[in-house]
């Protein structure tokens, strides 16, 4: 448990500091955030052709309403927590890589739901938008991380049944 906590905190702090570095922001985080905006637009477009993506901004061409996907809204922090948990927990490298890739996918899938929901909530009611943006969605994303990690532990257990070590 102590080893897990130490590794978890170390990886969490390390990845968080790396994410904040300017070259990493410019080369990885900002293009990735732009990709999220483009993906969100691609999902919305078949249902609503007034939406356009401009870099990290999702805009409604009719109303002019726009949301900008900023740090903390791109799901990277949540993914870092998950990666830190997976890396800190003893398992084979192969299992860790699978868990990180699958976990990242699930966190980002929910994050795209968050972005799309906020885009429409903002056009409907600003107070509701603020509530979901500032308080509810961060909690739901963290719950998603927790669920993914719990599923990962169960999956690992099924890969290595108790009393049958290789």
């Amino acid at each position, binding site marked *: 448990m102590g080893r897990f906590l130490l590794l978890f905190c170390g990886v969490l702090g390390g990845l968080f500091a790396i994410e*904040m570095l300017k070259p990493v922001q410019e080369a990885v985080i900002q293009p990735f955030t732009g990709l999220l905006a483009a993906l969100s637009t691609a999902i919305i477009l078949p249902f609503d052709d007034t939406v356009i993506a401009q870099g990290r901004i999702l805009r409604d061409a009719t109303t002019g309403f726009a949301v900008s996907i900023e740090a903390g809204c791109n799901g990277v922090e949540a993914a870092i927590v998950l990666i830190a948990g997976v890396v800190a927990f*003893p398992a084979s490298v192969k299992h860790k890589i699978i868990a990180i890739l699958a976990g990242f996918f699930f966190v980002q899938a929910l994050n795209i739901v968050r972005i799309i929901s906020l885009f429409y909530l903002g056009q409907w009611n600003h107070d509701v938008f603020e509530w979901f943006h*500032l*308080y509810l969605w961060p909690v739901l994303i963290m719950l998603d991380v927790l669920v993914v990690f*719990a599923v990962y532990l*169960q999956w690992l*257990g099924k890969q290595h049944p108790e009393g049958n070590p*290789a």
Partner: protein
Amino acid sequence: MLMRRQFVLTLILMPITFGIWYAAGSLFAAPAVWLTDFLMSSAYPNIVEAAGLQGAEMMVRTQFGEDGGVIMAATDAGNHIALDINTRLISYSIAFYAALLLASNLKDAMYKFCIGLFWLWLIMAFGLASILGKDLLLMAGTPFLDSTGVPPADLIALIYQFNVLLMPTLAPVCLWFWQLRGSPLWEALAADIRRASARA
């Protein structure tokens, strides 16, 4: 099965705990604001004069003033710049923690909640101080950075991101996990962990 029930119950309880948290206004944030006031006015008396609650906002009276658009010491400017910080940006961690804890149906839940609340207030105080640091950096800039004991701008940004974007959701999970020990859910989770790490 227990874990699934935990997540479903957490989602069901969240509207209730968030409703109570919002209706309570400044109640849940007050101790963290008092602690922030004590910490900041003790550690940085040359930057922060006092902090207090005004509704759900933390009002901070700084030692900076403004004259003709220039930020300077309040004594030179003849006025004090005040900042207001939305405490709910941090205090929603209490509503999340309450939902997690209630969903686990632990023994001595109220006692555990009080212990957790105490820790959350400490963490929230650092969160509020981090927001204050970021706001002062944006508002005052160089005069703030040149003050004694102020960390570099990059470190302020990093601390802000960590304490405001991550801790309000991560801290409740860590506290809840720590308080789970001895519960049926903990036993189920421990069995999963034992199986998972059997070959590691």
